[in-house]
Structures are given as structure tokens and as C-alpha cells.
């Protein structure tokens, strides 16, 4: 029987209360959202916080909305809610593609978007999806709010810019195109990615005027592929160029060998999945999407 070590437990009633509890309990305290990463780690003693601050009661963090050309996703939005949201599917099919492949329906009932990003596991699917669409993370601390690009949110495996007395409260994404997609290879249903790639593009005339590519489980710094994006930008959205972008993305990432596969296999997947994600995103381009807000 695996049971976590002892800890103190406090239920936050507001963001301000959660922040004051973080300050009160200090560096050995942790926020618990869905607990689906943290509790397993506590059972294995990979994490041993002295206090848990439960933010499940913060319904203000559980909202999804679209306002002024921006999608807002609260940190406590569950995977299942992101997947069932029609407005998310309309503007960001990439999130529905990704959510369908994250864990299983029961885990998705509990795990949260904020928890996924803060966990910063190199295999976290939403990190690459938000990196691809250039999402922003809204972080709140006792001194106020700050906004950080998701592409600058991660400081290393399992590490983010969220400070000891801060918490992630929201993710927001400018709506500029619904031409996005997520492609993942896993060993079995509901498993973590062997490799996965997300892409978003915007076309004017024949030219790609914006491209985002996110990589999961491939050792890409900050979960994205800037060299491949740069290569594609300003050129036509054609297969030959997608193929080259795939080769560039594969060359610039740093996958590690593990039980999911050797490095050359993962690099191969980086290439193939980049092409697939770009192509699938292109099929979703209808030319009439709102400009970036």
C-alpha cells in the first residue's frame, strides 16, 4: 500500500487565500490541483511537501471564455472540460486533438490544465500545444500579476518560472487561426507520448504569415521548434517545405533514449509528426479567421 508521508492540508477559499497560505507555510508547501501528478509522486516519495494547499474550491479558476479575440482558460479547468468545450474546439482544434490523447477519460475528469503546465514533465502534451499557439501564462503572487509567454514558462524538466509564493491562475491565447493540429505517437491508449508535435499556421495568399510548432517528449527547449518555424515563415504552405521543416525540427531537438525508444527513432518521429501536424493544420485553414487581437 502506497501512502504519502504526513503533511498538513489546507483548503484555499480564494486566490488571495491560497497565496497567503503559500507564504505562511513557506517553500515546503505545494499547491494541489487535480493531484494526478503530485499524489503519485508523494506516494513514491519523489515529492514530500510538508503542506498541501488545495485549490479545487476556486471556481473562479475553472472557467473557459472567449473575449476580444482571446481564449482564456483558468488553471483549474479539467482536461475533460477543455475537451468538451465547443468554443475551444472551434478556435483551437489542437487542444481537442491533444486532449483526446491525454491519459484516459477518468484521469481527464480530475487532472487540470494548470497542473499539467506546472508539472512541466517533458512529456506533458499541453505544454507543447500551448507553446505551438503562443499561449501566455498569467501568474499571480502577493505582489500582483505577471504574464509570461508559455515559451518562456519552463526553466527545465519539472521546473517553471512560477515562484515559491506565486501560482498559475490562467492561460490565455490570442485567436489568430483555427488551423491547428496535434499528432502523437504513444505505445498504447492513454499513455504518455513517445513523441508528439503540435502545429498552428496562418496563410495569406499563398504565404505562411505565422507558424507555431510545439514538440513534446523530444527534448526541445521550451517545447517548441523555432528553427523550423523560422524556415517556414514567409514561404508557401506546400508539402516540400513541410518536409524540410520536419527535418529541421528533428535535427534541432534533443530526445533521450528511454523505455519508449532510442534517440534515432524519436528523431524520426519528430520529423514525421511535424509534417503530419502541419498538413492537418493546413486542411483546417479556411482563410476567414480573425486577425490576431
Amino acid at each position, binding site marked *: 500500500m502506497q*501512502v504519502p508521508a504526513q503533511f498538513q492540508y489546507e483548503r484555499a477559499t480564494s486566490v488571495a487565500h491560497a497565496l497567503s497560505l503559500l507564504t505562511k507555510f513557506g517553500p515546503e508547501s505545494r499547491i494541489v490541483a487535480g493531484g494526478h501528478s503530485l*499524489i*503519485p509522486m508523494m506516494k513514491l516519495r519523489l515529492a514530500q511537501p510538508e503542506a498541501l494547499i488545495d485549490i*479545487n474550491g476556486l471556481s473562479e479558476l475553472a472557467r473557459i471564455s472567449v473575449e476580444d479575440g482571446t481564449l482564456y482558460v483558468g488553471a483549474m479547468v479539467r482536461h475533460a472540460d477543455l475537451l468538451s468545450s465547443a468554443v475551444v474546439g472551434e478556435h483551437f482544434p489542437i487542444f481537442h486533438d491533444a486532449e483526446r490523447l491525454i491519459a*484516459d*477519460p477518468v484521469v481527464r*475528469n*480530475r487532472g487540470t490544465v494548470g497542473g499539467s503546465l506546472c508539472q512541466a514533465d517533458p512529456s506533458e502534451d499541453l505544454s507543447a500545444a500551448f507553446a505551438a499557439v503562443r499561449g501566455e501564462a498569467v501568474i499571480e503572487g502577493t505582489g500582483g500579476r505577471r504574464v509570461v509567454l508559455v515559451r518562456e514558462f519552463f526553466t527545465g524538466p519539472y521546473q517553471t518560472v512560477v515562484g515559491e509564493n506565486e501560482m498559475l491562475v490562467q492561460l490565455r491565447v490570442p485567436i489568430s487561426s483555427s488551423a491547428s493540429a496535434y499528432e502523437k505517437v504513444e505505445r498504447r491508449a492513454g499513455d504518455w507520448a513517445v513523441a508528439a508535435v503540435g502545429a498552428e499556421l496562418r496563410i495569406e495568399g499563398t504565404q505562411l504569415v505565422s507558424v507555431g510548432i510545439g514538440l513534446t517528449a523530444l527534448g526541445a527547449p521550451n517545447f517548441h521548434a523555432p528553427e523550423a518555424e523560422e524556415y517556414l515563415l514567409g514561404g508557401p504552405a506546400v508539402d516540400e517545405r513541410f518536409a524540410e521543416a520536419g527535418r529541421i525540427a528533428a535535427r534541432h531537438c534533443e530526445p533521450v533514449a528511454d523505455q519508449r525508444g532510442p534517440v534515432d527513432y524519436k528523431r524520426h518521429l519528430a520529423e514525421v509528426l511535424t509534417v503530419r501536424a502541419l498538413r492537418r493544420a493546413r486542411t483546417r485553414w479556411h482563410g476567414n479567421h480573425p486577425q490576431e487581437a
Partner: protein
Amino acid sequence: MEITVTVNGQQHTRNVEPRLLLVHFLRDELGLTGTHWGCDTSNCGACVVWLDEAPVKSCTVLAVMADGRRVRTVEGLGDSTGLDPVQQGFTECHGLQCGFCTPGMMLTARWLLDHHPDPSEEDIREAISGQLCRCTGYENIVKSIQWAAEHDTAAAAVPEESTVDSAEVSA
């Protein structure tokens, strides 16, 4: 810390350690051993129960997180008038072999049918994809859920709150 959880319509108040997992609370504190406990790593789904409106893996939820909330276990399927159609389906179609995965499978099936009264085979397989049957009886489990969908007359309602059971027990 003191928590009050409504399990299958009945309120239970207990004093528990924060580290007590919901699965152990149900089994060891309340004696509801229908909730099984298998892998302990959130993978097998033997421990699935409903927390408020949706199935969750109770080996990865703290009992204190269920304070003030409703839980539904396999003991809360069916009522005095008879079995839930899902339970009947498992009987009709040989959906259980050793029975270890069965409670979790049935609770997820009930949830699926409440939201999706006419699921395709693919919908059923997707719904139970986070739950392992060590006897690998998936074919019959899928058939059982299909049977239940065909014979589901009224969506089974969560029972009303009834008696109160209060005791002080330390975890």
C-alpha cells in the same frame, strides 16, 4: 481532520489524516469493499468511484478532498427495487470473470450511459480505456454495456441523502 462525505446518499463523518486516500477511506473506514484497489498508480481503474458527478480514480484522490462532497460506489448502483441495468448487463453477457475490475467498469459504464444513452462500440471502448481487466474480458464487458444501453429504461438517479452515520475514527 474531520470530514463529512455523502456516500451513496448516506452522510459519514470521520476524523482522518490528510494523507488517507479516498479508496482506503471507503474500504477501511466505511467498510465499502466493493471499491477495489489494484495498481495504486492511477493506471488500472479498479478504484474508480464517482466524486460528485464524474468517475475518478480514488487511489489518487485524498479523502479530505471529498469533504462536503458526494461519492458513489458500486454499492450505490441499483436499489431496493433491483439491479441497475448495467449490473444486469454484466450478468446477462458474462461481463465479469474474476470480478476485480467490475465495480470500476460498471461505474464508468453508468456514467457513459447517463451522458450518452446510445453509445457506439468505439464510445464504450474509449470510456473504459483507462481501466484494465486482468482477465482480459473486454469483449464481454463491451457487450454488457451495450446490453445495458438497450435495456436502460430510466437513467438511474443518485439516491437521495438519507440516514446519518457518524463516528470518530482515526486513520
